């Protein structure tokens, strides 16, 4: 704990800084972690790069409204999620705006995100339903929402998704995408979740604290 700041606030500030550093932030970003019946979140009207300790709020899930209600719906629908990121990275944004699907262009996307990432309707119920069995979705006209077992995992999803979006756009223009086939993409995703990432997520869970 630094300067009397609680662990969750520290985490939010640390990863807000990381997202800004990796240049995957935009307007309307909000990241949160679960804390029992509460969620600890960045203020939705403050850009992540400008976030300070005073811009991290604690909200009771049952009373959450607006952006925070979206996060609360996701935590309710997805019991294994301890963190949610709603971000607007530069390459994801235009794809979400035109309602496209990011296909299996890269190994790391298929492993971390899944064999594709679709754009869903901009509605809290639909987003939460979409995230029930996945950890990432594009949202029509509103960036992407990712959920993770740790904040580290949710942030990694944002980074990998933006890179996959960039690769999808640029490789389509350069030549033609050669996609990873359905079987291999699904297999990699299962191995990542069940085996490859397990130890790292356990370490991170103990470090980020039991939320």
């Amino acid at each position, binding site marked *: 704990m630094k300067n009397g700041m609680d662990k969750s606030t520290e985490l939010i500030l640390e990863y807000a800084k990381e997202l800004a550093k990796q240049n995957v932030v935009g307007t309307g970003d909000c990241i949160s972690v679960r804390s029992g019946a509460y969620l600890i979140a960045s203020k939705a009207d403050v850009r992540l790069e400008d976030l300070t300790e005073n811009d991290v709020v604690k909200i009771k899930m049952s009373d959450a409204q607006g952006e925070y209600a979206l996060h609360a719906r996701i935590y309710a629908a997805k019991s294994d999620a301890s963190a949610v990121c709603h971000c607007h990275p530069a390459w994801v944004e235009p794809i979400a705006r035109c309602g496209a699907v990011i296909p299996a262009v*890269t190994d790391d996307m298929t492993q971390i995100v899944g064999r594709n990432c679709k754009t869903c309707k901009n509605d809290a119920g639909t987003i939460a339903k979409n995230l029930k069995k996945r950890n990432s979705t594009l949202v029509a006209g509103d960036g992407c929402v990712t959920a993770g077992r740790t904040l580290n995992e949710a942030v990694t999803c944002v980074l990998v998704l933006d890179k996959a979006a960039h690769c999808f756009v640029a490789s389509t223009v350069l030549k033609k995408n050669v996609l990873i086939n359905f079987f291999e993409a699904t297999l990699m995703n299962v191995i990542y979740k069940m085996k490859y990432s397990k130890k790292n997520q356990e370490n991170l869970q103990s470090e980020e604290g039991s939320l």
Partner: protein
Amino acid sequence: MWDKNTENELRQLVKDSGVRLLEENLVQGTWGNISARLDEDHMLVTPTGLDYNHLTPEDMPIVQISDPSVWSDGKKPTSERKIHAAVLASRPEINVCIHSHPVFATVMASCRMPLPAFSDELREVMGGDVAVGAYGLPGTKKLMEGTVKAIRGRNACFMANHGVFCVGKTMDEAFNVLRVLERNVYAFIQKKTLEKTGGGEYTDEMLFDLFVKSKG
């Protein structure tokens, strides 16, 4: 055989270089791996599936180059150690390998397009054009053989739908290969975009407009 001081210095270098990959966004999460030669038959590698920020120098296992299934010390080695071992075995002048997933180079990897040696810098640092290795699932023989073949006579290659593999005599040299590759792929994407738009000053919006048009 190597002395303990050299080993400790290399352990620290591998650990610091893993963090450097993350800090420069040349890799995301736990992806990517690094090896550094200890002697002609041993290398230090990064462990599998763990965040570089949380590793200690002692976590790096020592792997036998002639038989990468044999390892000691440290944590379980990266599943891509066979590629590192095969490259180090076939290239005695190389001491360091970096496998990572930087954004621009991964564009080439995802459309499986080789990079022509269009600049002096590329010819000098890569040794010519940069080929694409055959696609294979992570940790497989197919991926290993494809990568070894594609990097033959060069200091880097793309790995289909995966990332890049770069080598150097030193860690700094391998990082330089990685950065030069990334910079030149970006220049190549700009050049190709402008050829299609008819010139002007490159912007990412141009690329996106071409993408939208191609999708009808």
